[in-house]
């Protein structure tokens, strides 16, 4: 089998860096999940410091991957599946970086929330929402690296569920807020919860973007802004005679 060694190495290196970046992001999301499920809403200073340092590393990986992307396109001019992999990895890195930013923001706000009985059930729901979003992020990444279209479709379908939870949560916040505007601490908590919920919803959107990038790699189809139910059956078909 003949192949440009330099081109192959460059693409593999980029892919490896995106995998490392993905691992870092999933680690950050797991930390958030642990924080929420513990119900304590406090974190050791060492862990906080590590969280922030990891966020910086994620930013560095974004720049590194961007450089690798530019070099591969300008020097090696990939085509076909290699081009799609490089494009998908680049799109993945952009979305991962945004997820990293949101995770840090969520952490900061969570640690600002003061414990109060009337936010206890909100925290439980946020925890469930985050768990589902984390699953979406993980499966969307796996769909790309394990060539698994099912995971990508699963992620896209779950985005609607997250949107629904988001709407319900906002309604609930408004309902709970009635008559309590005089309590500034409660109001502050509710605003913070609203920001957290919105950020989780946006993280799910990023997972959706990753799933779309994965589908682009796997099928060569750009399904952005399409309804998944209308393209699902088409996506599940095997790709022409590529498997011959």
């Amino acid at each position, binding site marked *: 089998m003949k192949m440009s060694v330099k081109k192959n190495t460059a693409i593999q290196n980029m892919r490896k860096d995106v995998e490392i970046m993905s691992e870092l992001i999933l680690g950050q999301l797991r930390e958030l999940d642990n924080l929420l499920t513990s119900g304590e809403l406090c974190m050791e200073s060492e862990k906080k410091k590590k969280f922030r340092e990891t966020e910086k590393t994620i930013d560095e990986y974004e720049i590194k991957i961007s450089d690798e992307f530019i070099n591969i396109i300008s020097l090696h001019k990939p085509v*076909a599946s290699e081009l*799609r992999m490089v494009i998908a990895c680049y799109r993945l890195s952009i979305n991962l970086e945004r997820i990293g930013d949101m995770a840090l923001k969520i952490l900061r706000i969570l640690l600002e929330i003061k414990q109060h009985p009337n936010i206890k059930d909100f925290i439980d729901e946020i925890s469930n929402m985050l768990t589902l979003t984390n699953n979406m992020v993980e499966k969307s990444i796996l769909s790309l690296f394990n060539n698994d279209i099912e995971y990508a479709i699963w992620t896209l379908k779950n985005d609607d569920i997250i949107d629904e939870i988001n709407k319900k949560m906002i309604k609930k916040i408004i309902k709970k807020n009635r008559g309590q505007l005089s309590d500034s601490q409660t109001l502050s908590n509710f605003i913070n919860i609203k920001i957290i919920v919105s950020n989780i919803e946006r993280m799910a959107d990023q997972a959706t973007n990753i799933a779309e990038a994965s589908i682009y790699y796997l099928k060569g189809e750009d399904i952005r802004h399409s309804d998944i139910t209308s393209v699902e059956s088409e996506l599940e078909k095997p790709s022409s005679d590529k498997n011959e």
Partner: protein
Amino acid sequence: MDIMLKNKKLAGAVVSEKTNIPNKKIEENGLPGIRMESRDLTVKYGTVTGVKNISLPICNEKVTALIGPSGCGKTTFLRSLNRMHDITRNATVSGEVLLDGRNIYHPKVNPVDIRRKVGIIFQKPTPFPTMSIFNNVVAGLKLVGIKNKKLLNEVCERALKQAALFDEVKDRLNSPGGSLSGGQQQRLSIARALAIEPEVILMDEPTSSLDPQSSSKIEDLIHELKKNYAIVIVTHNLQQAGRVSDNTGFFYLGELVEFGETEKIYTNPANKRTEEYLTGKFG
């Protein structure tokens, strides 16, 4: 005769006068925009098959790129489009090549007329080295007996302008063609092909012997020429094929493995062998 040639497609006029084949319109093929088309075309050299059962459309105002590893039959196919195999010993052609709906291999068709309608540019520039630039351009016209100086001047200027060479040589049209640089010589060869107003232009690796700047000029020229001609280009430069062509055909072991829009072939080829060739796994 001269006036008619000035206003009509030169070669087209000659062919339709000399042949008596029903002039089927392009649209009758059911595929509007198709200027030329091969149907189950097979070319053999003795017992060796060059290309096998190739069916491929060549569209107006489009560039069709033929790619594939060495020896896959690209050039064999290209040469069959203007009957150049007629002069190849042991070469036999079966199947059809339709130009405007008429089979160019019909016994009543004169291959010389076909070569006027289907011009070819080779890998190496082929100017007549001692002949002047002017005479190089109008050589084809003189060959068919056109002597009107005014018409020859007009055709020469137009062809050189179309080939993006006029500004560089307008002050030395009497200099020998061999005095030009490689890139200029290739554009002179293109001007010579354009002078006889072909309908289809075949290019066999037209930039492989040129430096990047000259190659770039030829690519720009291809982009301009496709507005008026159907162009077929054989190239080993995959990036060039991607840049200049609208449709791409991938040949392998004498067969057309895949044909389609270049954008589709280069981003998501349907066939595994196309994928492997494009990504450098073989070839």
